[in-house]
């Protein structure tokens, strides 16, 4: 199980930036689409907010992945004294 935790740790580290890139691509595509297709639905502000919120969360996912890769979750604390 610990090997799986480490392997997945790498995946989470990669997933963080991938999500951000995906969001940027979706935002630019959808804002363009919305402007053409649905005249009154300009979603630039909405997508900006979404991206702004998810950047720190994805940074958290990268840190989580790094901890997983370094084996920080191999043994979880049993009592508060371990924290």
């Amino acid at each position, binding site marked *: 199980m610990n090997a799986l935790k480490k392997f997945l740790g790498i995946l989470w580290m990669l997933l963080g930036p991938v999500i951000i890139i995906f969001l940027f691509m979706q935002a630019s595509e959808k804002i363009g689409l919305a402007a053409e297709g649905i005249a*009154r639905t300009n979603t630039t502000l909405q997508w900006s907010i979404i991206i702004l919120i998810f950047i720190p969360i994805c940074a958290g996912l990268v840190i989580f992945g790094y901890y997983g890769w370094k084996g920080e979750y191999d043994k979880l604390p049993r009592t*508060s004294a371990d924290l």
Partner: protein
Amino acid sequence: MQSTDKNVSQSITQVIAASSLGTLIEWYDFYIFGSLAVIIGQQLFPSDAGASALINTLAIFAAGFIVRPFGALVFGRLGDLIGRKYTFLLTLVLMGGSTFLIGLIPSYSSIGYAAPILVLILRLVQGLALGGEYGGAATYVAEHAPVGKRGFFTSWIQTTATLGLFLSLGVIVLTKNMLGAEAFADWGWRIPFLVSILLVGVSIYIRMKMHESPVFTKLKAEGKVSTNPLKESFQKKANFKMVLLALFGATMGQGVIWYTGQFYAQSFLENTCKLDFNESRYILLWAILFATPFFVVFGSWSDKVGRKWIMLMGMLLGVICYRPIYQYFIDATNVKEFQKTELKSASAPVVERTLVKDTKDSLVTTTTLKTLNNGMTFKEAKIVTIPDAPATFPEEQTVIKDVTLSGPTYIIIIALVFFQVLLVTMVYGPIAAFLVELFPTKIRYTSMSLPYHIGNGVFGGLVPFIATLVASFSGSTPLSGLWYPIGIAALSFVIGAVYIDNKGDENVAD
């Protein structure tokens, strides 16, 4: 001995009742905004804003969720420094005051864009207050609860979010039925906001009589209270890694399951399936009514078998079942197709002519009430735009609205929404105990509040907004919006399954 047990039991019952009542009212305050999104959109934005008014209102609704983590930081810190009791008294006052003021904001037609700006500010205060409330209440109850019953006792707090939603829907439906649709849309929507001040007053009175958490009192007496809870929670790697694990392995998935089952389902039935305003709310009310006891069932069960797999099974079932469930919603309410073979009767058409704002074009709306052989009814409105310029052709569109269901379909849809709320009880029932047991007393309020409110507030609170946004783009299907909750729940399931231990630290006094 029996007498002592009885006293302890009574004291815990009072703790749960007083904590739950305040938390329930805060959830009520928070949810009436979402439940009235369509009407508030019409009041706050220009009358011809259409879909963008709903999306902007949902954005203001979502803003309340987005600031919840900041409320968690501000009030969590306060709760770890000065105590649980006074902190969640303060959050209650802020929540009640801002909700009451939303009910007093003039509409767009009176004060223009100042209306949505003021509501946004008050909505942010609501979000901050809620960010501080839940962690305090859950911590307070958990620190009173005996070992082996923490899941059971905290599950009562967990019922309050759903009951708050139930109360908000109930008050809205009741007010609308008493005033009539027109008066409700005009000014009656303010009543549910204004009523809040009375509920909050009662709750403050009850909470004033409560004592501080015994675990926190002991910590304070020993001089072990944290001097900098934020630093200890997030700069100390041993604790911060648990904050991240709680977020990605539990609260993130829990948040999307919660808001898909209890918000998106109703929004989907009303806006995509075109169900009648009351019908979609009654369905959710019945589903919540039947499912709410399961918060306590799963909370209590988690004391015996562990918290982890109950929560994760709720996420997995959501991932598997959401698309078939919502596909059924679409198929079962497709009256446009049904009327081709099943039309039983149609009323005499009602014709209404109105002028299009800022133009000389006019709209002619012909509404017909139709009944199908299976008992379903709906209104079909043919809207013809007649241009002022004689050379241009009229444009026609047909709109279906106010669909009411027949017996068997109605029951099946209630059952499917019930199933979604049941998943909510699986992920949400045990989670307060899970989070409380993850962190030490001196930084518990801060440490558990942040992942909870990012997971529940940001990931969950954005479900209606992101799903509606995704589904509104050309090329998308009505089910496209579901990929967001399905993807997040699947990710959280994998992380939770691999990284979280089923056995937590049952001693919360250290």
